[in-house]
């Protein structure tokens, strides 16, 4: 871990969200080969004074580091647990062993989110030590915790994509070696050509016949042609193989990143901007591919060329070689310095570019709002701002770059000049031949041209390293909703739901504070309450888009965290307020949850959703294309397609999240008729803003401030004269 503190290591450790400071403070406490999986810096001590106490979970140990005091650590065991509570901004955290506190800490609400993250991780680690029947436990069943991969330089991490293509890699490298070597034969032949043929011919003053001259000349010329042809053929094969390889690698990288994105839990998408994610998959991976196919290849060639040339030069004439290589260390030093600064510059430029794309992905889908509020100018200014940041950061890079490029060029020319001066002196003293000098000039010319192009490549290398870093940043994220360690196949559930003491904290805000609900199979339950009362969060928890912070949700008596996520969700159907239609035909959209559905099933589902009528009136019927936002269809029509989608998958558990809120009364009636068909025989939780839509509900649950305040039928609730009555009267008042 100590090596992590150097240069690139810090950057890589930040990959896992662990600042270098934490690693520094933990020092040798962390067992080698393991990284800090979770940590929190508690901001106050037990005396409630502001302080910094590091609490980290690493290698199955809970480690505490406080100032200069020696670190304390506890090995996590199954009889241990962390428990916390927060009251008016002050939190306390206790480490329990057999339910007895063995250590206590304090923190402020600022750290509440970090603490709950640590707790989840800790309790999972503790659970892993014990294989409990998840159905009996009221706490989170064990989930698979994958150890974070060891930090390594971002570009080197690409090698894992090359692993199963070792044959190609080796042949590519060998071809590069041979092609480069073949390229060096040609200049070598000029030395004997000058010394043994041209100069004797000039000196002899036509004592030799032209015939003899050409006979002496021909082998060299043929050799040069041959060497050039061989180098050409090898170069061709090398370029083809290397670009084939790099395309394959970047294709794998894109696939893997996208697969990983789809695996991520919903909260990940809430925190990231769409434009940013898209640019990481598209332009960053393209940049990496470009780097691998051309720049890396050039780099290897250049490096080989430089090594081979220096070897030849040293072998020909060590002193001349040393003199001509004098500017080399200066260039190397310069390059190193510039590299460090460039890397930061490119990272900044990448961020600026991301921000600019984010402005686009934000404003273009919202163009109706922009136009409706006549804010075009403001959006333009927003884009110009972001674009100016791109310009600024690129100019900053270019300032450095414009100095660096010509400086390398001038140093190269000095190198050449040194050869001419020293070489001419050597020739005049008869130490070397003209041919040898010519050979040196040719080789050293190549040497510096290569060095120059290598230094130019620096920018691309840094750019590619930054791109790789950003792609791996996604790959290193792990879904917060994790697959169970010992999964239980839910099969086809009967649909009884039980929420047991459910609490959910979003950041440090408690959204659900202790909810107990039982829903019988086939029951239709309405969920009402003022906005912000936690209704949507509750159904998100039932769908397992998030995991509860405390308590458990049981379906058919089993904790939903013990089901494989996909198998569980295939039992759940959801109709959202804003239906999302994918680009494709209506038939494909209806069959989204069941891609192999027959036309018969699709049409039946559409009929049940009252969508068949309007679909058959479209010119292309079920083959009509609908766009990303379902252009050409009204809100009610899109909603009915999404209802047909839910009907087709025949879920046992149905969530209606304000399914009729976004439409007018007439459309609502149509949708309601479709919904009545959908809810038949299914356990349904319906969030409704309009209380009138819940007339068929078996029970209505009223929520406020994250707790259930009233439960009952419409009439009973009205009689209670409580929150429900208030909501009801508010709606009546609006209508009159």
């Amino acid at each position, binding site marked *: 871990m100590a090596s992590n503190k150097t240069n690139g290591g810090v950057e890589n450790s930040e990959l896992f969200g662990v600042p270098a400071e934490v690693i520094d403070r933990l020092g040798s406490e962390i067992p080698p080969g393991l990284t800090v999986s979770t940590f929190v810096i508690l901001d106050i001590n037990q005396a409630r004074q502001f302080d910094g106490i590091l609490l980290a979970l690493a290698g199955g140990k809970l480690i505490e580091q406080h100032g200069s005091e020696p670190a304390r650590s506890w090995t996590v065991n199954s009889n241990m647990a962390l428990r916390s509570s927060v009251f008016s901004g002050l939190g306390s955290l206790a480490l329990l062993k057999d339910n007895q506190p063995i250590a206590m800490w304090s923190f402020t609400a600022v750290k509440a989110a970090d603490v709950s993250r640590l707790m989840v991780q800790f309790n999972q680690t503790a659970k892993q030590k014990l294989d409990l029947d998840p159905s009996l436990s009221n706490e989170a069943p064990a989930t698979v915790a994958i150890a974070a991969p060891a930090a390594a330089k971002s570009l080197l991490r690409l090698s894992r994509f090359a692993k199963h293509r070792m044959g190609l890699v080796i042949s590519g490298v060998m071809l590069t070696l041979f092609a480069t070597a073949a390229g060096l034969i040609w200049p070598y032949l000029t030395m004997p050509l000058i010394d043994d043929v041209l100069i004797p011919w000039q000196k002899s003053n036509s004592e030799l016949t032209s015939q003899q001259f050409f006979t002496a000349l021909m082998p060299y010329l043929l050799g040069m042609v041959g060497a050039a042809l061989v180098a050409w053929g090898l170069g061709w094969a090398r370029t083809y193989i290397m670009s084939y390889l790099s395309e394959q690698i970047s294709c794998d990288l894109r696939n893997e990143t996208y697969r990983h994105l789809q695996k991520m839990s919903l909260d990940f998408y809430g925190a990231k901007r769409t434009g940013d994610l898209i640019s990481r998959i598209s332009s960053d991976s393209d940049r990496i591919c470009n780097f691998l196919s051309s720049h890396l290849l050039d780099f290897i060639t250049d490096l080989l060329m430089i090594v081979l040339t220096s070897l030849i030069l040293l072998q020909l004439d060590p002193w001349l070689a040393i003199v001509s290589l004098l500017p080399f260390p200066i260039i190397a030093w310069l390059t190193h310095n510039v590299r460090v600064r460039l890397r930061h510059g490119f990272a900044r430029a990448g961020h600026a570019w991301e921000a600019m794309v984010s402005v686009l992905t934000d404003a273009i889908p919202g163009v109706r709002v922009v136009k409706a509020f006549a804010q075009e100018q403001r959006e333009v200014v927003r884009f110009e701002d972001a674009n100016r940041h791109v310009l600024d950061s690129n100019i900053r890079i270019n300032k450095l770059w414009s100095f660096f490029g010509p400086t390398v060029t001038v140093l190269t020319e000095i190198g050449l000049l040194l050869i001419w001066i020293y070489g001419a002196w050597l020739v005049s003293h008869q130490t070397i031949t003209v041919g040898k000098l010519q050979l040196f000039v040719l080789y050293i010319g190549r040497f510096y041209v290569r060095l120059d192009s290598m230094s130019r490549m620096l920018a691309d290398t840094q750019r590619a390293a930054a791109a790789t870093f950003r792609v791996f940043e996604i790959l290193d994220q792990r879904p917060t909703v994790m697959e169970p360690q010992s999964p239980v196949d839910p099969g086809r559930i009967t649909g009884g739901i039980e929420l047991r003491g459910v609490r959910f904290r979003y950041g440090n805000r408690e959204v659900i504070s202790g909810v107990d609900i039982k829903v019988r199979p086939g029951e239709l339950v309405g969920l009402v309450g003022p906005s912000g009362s936690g209704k949507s969060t509750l159904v998100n928890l039932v769908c397992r888009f998030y995991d509860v912070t405390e308590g458990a949700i049981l379906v058919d008596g089993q904790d939903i965290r013990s089901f494989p996520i996909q198998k569980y969700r295939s039992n759940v159907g959801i109709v959202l307020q804003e239906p999302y239609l994918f680009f494709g035909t209506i*038939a494909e959209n209806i069959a989204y949850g069941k891609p192999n559905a027959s*036309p018969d099933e699709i*049409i039946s589902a559409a009929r049940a959703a009252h969508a068949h*009528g309007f679909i*058959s009136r479209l*010119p*292309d019927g*079920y083959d009509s*294309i609908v*766009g990303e936002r379902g252009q050409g269809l009204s809100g009610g029509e899109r909603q009915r397609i999404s209802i047909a989608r839910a009907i087709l998958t025949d879920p046992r558990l149905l969530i209606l999240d304000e399914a009729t809120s976004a439409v007018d009364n007439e459309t609502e009636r149509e949708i309601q008729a479709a919904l009545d068909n959908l809810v038949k025989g299914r356990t349904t939780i319906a969030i409704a803003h309009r209380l009138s839509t819940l007339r068929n509900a078996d029970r209505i649950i009223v929520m406020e401030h994250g707790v259930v305040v009233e439960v009952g039928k419409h009439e009973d609730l009205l009689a209670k004269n409580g929150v429900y009555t208030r909501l009801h009267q508010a709606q009546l008042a609006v209508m009159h």
Partner: protein
Amino acid sequence: MHVETLVLSVDALGQLSASDSQGNRFDDIRPVRLFPLSKPSEWISLVDRSGKEILCVDDPANLSAENQKVLASELEKREFVPVLKRVVWVSGNSEPCEWKVETDRGTTSFIIKDENDVRKLGENGVIIVDSFGIRYHVPDRDALDSYSRRIIEWYV
């Protein structure tokens, strides 16, 4: 209404009527292909003037030969999907662009508004929707000449 006892007939005015043995009778109806592109010959819906479905025929092959003939000719009467034989000229490769084409119904020109208006249909087929919503069908793009194929493959 049932497919088994359905009788389709066309009167002197060219109106399609459907009746069955139970004495149900619907006049002025029209056939609608529910999957005009992917399954043009199956799933034909018979709708009345207001667009309400009276019967859905999943496979016309189950109808009597007479009914099949009436249905086929009625469908044919209501459809205009020229088969594209050759692309003669295209104004440019950014939309909107104008195409001059030869079809089985003669030479014509049309405007494509959006790149999504040229769509793949099955393995080799292509459907082109012009700015007026007229559809042009290419059953097999490999059968086209190289120029036409190049233009179309640019889109699909």
